[in-house]
């Protein structure tokens, strides 16, 4: 349905003999709907629409482009400028990566996917299982890690995640990439946010990646901002993009934290992780 709506927009532009203000406004309104259906934040959609409208009406089209093609190009460029160009993940020789995020977003699964990613790049990975709340969290991680052939430290009966981090770091002394999986939490859970801050202090991560479910709607911006304010994020992992959700909430997460989307999750398997591709992401939103 989303691609139908934008095909409709393209048809409007390409069939119109020339572009005028009324047509531009109509095109922008259609694009607004595509963005909102993809869960892009309402305020962001409003700002984007204004900029797109101004650019489309005022800028001279680039030579060789019809005014119509110019409008479409403008929409793409505005969205890509928010996300940045596709960037290979910068691999240091040693790294500590902390994964945080809302309950059920995909952190545990992502920790193993990341471990596999690192080992394919020649870095020896190690995962610390610091979720002490969720029943069988350690079992889940062990079973996944076994498939990826990566070592895990955890305490199945453990109650103190900070102690687990300390013991885990000792065990991970020979590893190149140490990944910390944490319990799910959201910004209204003050005690859990306090714990997250303490874990970050003890673990001293090089990377703090917020794991976001692509189904996350309009609260994405506020949640990301709260995580960023608490421990300072260095990136985002957007999961479950193999489903129906377009992940528009991630745009706000990026806008609110000044970071980039590093990876996307495209399935439950440990190989289902890819470097974020902004052009593919935007095309999916615009259909």
């Amino acid at each position, binding site marked *: 349905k989303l691609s139908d709506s934008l095909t409709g927009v393209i048809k409007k532009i390409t069939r119109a003999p020339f572009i005028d203000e009324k047509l531009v406004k109509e095109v922008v309104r259609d694009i607004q709907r595509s963005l909102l259906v*993809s869960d892009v934040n*309402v305020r962001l959609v409003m700002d984007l629409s204004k900029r797109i409208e101004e650019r489309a009406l005022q800028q001279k089209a680039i030579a060789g482009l019809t005014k119509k093609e110019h409008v479409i190009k403008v929409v793409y460029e505005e969205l890509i400028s928010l996300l940045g160009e596709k960037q290979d993940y910068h691999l240091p020789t040693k790294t500590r990566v902390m994964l945080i995020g*809302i*309950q059920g*977003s995909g952190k545990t699964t992502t920790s193993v996917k990341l471990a596999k990613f690192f080992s394919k790049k020649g870095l020896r990975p190690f995962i610390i299982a610091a979720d002490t709340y969720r029943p069988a969290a350690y079992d889940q*991680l062990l079973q996944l890690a076994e498939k990826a052939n990566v070592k895990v430290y955890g305490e199945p009966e453990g109650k103190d995640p900070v102690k687990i981090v300390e013991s885990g770091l000792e065990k991970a002394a020979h590893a190149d990439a140490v990944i910390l999986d944490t319990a799910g939490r959201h910004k209204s859970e003050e005690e859990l946010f306090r714990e997250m801050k303490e874990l970050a202090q003890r673990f001293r991560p090089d990377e703090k990646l917020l794991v976001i479910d692509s*189904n996350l709607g309009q609260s994405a911006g506020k949640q990301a901002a709260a995580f960023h304010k608490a421990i300072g994020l260095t990136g985002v992992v957007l999961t479950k993009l193999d489903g129906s959700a*377009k992940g528009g909430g991630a745009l706000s997460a990026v806008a609110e934290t000044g970071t980039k989307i590093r990876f996307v999750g495209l399935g439950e398997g440990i190989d289902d992780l890819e470097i974020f591709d902004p052009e593919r992401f935007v095309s999916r939103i615009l259909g």
Partner: protein
Amino acid sequence: AVLDENRLDELLFDLELALIESDVALEVVDAVKADVKAALLGRSFGRGADLSAIVKQALRDSVKKVFVDGDLLEIIREGKRPFVIVFVGVNGTGKTTTIAKVARLLEREGFSTVIAAADTYRAGAIEQIEKHASNLGVRLIKQGRGADSAAVAFDAIEHARARGLDVVLIDTAGRMDTNVNLMDELKKVVRVSRPDLVLFVGDALSGNAVVEQVRTFHQYTPIDGAIITKADADAKGGSAISIAATLKRPVFFLGTGQGYDDLQRFNGSWFVDQILP
């Protein structure tokens, strides 16, 4: 003065935005707006009338109409034995945790319950629900990881029948509505268990995708109601409205945390008043 379309659109604009910002899906907002227009367009109001209050109330009423009332405990009380409920939904929405909460509620209300660990797919899934069952003192039926999900469900129902237990709660693996193989598998689990209710477990934090998800799930197996989780996560939870509008079935409960008692009966009217105060 007669209320014309331009004025009505103007009065609706901010309210529409409030609904969208609360994660009510766009097509549901459109439908509700059309409903309000049908009710108010062309009507004349006295000179002192507070038009924005009138429009807001009309919108509230229209959204509230989306909800169908339902009392899960009553339905179970009057239902057959064993009463079978299958829990379905996309990955990570809180199905397994919700089953634990429902089991706690049922035990407290005097129903004997058995849980089927029919997520035979995901890492640690059986261990997770096994721990919940042991915490709750509720019987669990499981087989090994990789076993046939429908077989576990069937096993649990037979167990309940043999022991005269009241309710069977069947956990299933999270799955994307876009994955045809997994959706076919779910269809089979439901066909074999012949449940009294299939409940969609949705996330209060999710946005527009729920409409398509609920529609697709409903095509594979008729959905009888929903439970919305993570309502404690400071989201307005408009997805509950989207789900109710798409399903036209009751939202029975809200999950309001990770503890066994964090389950409260859904009240549509109160819910809408939170979104459109």
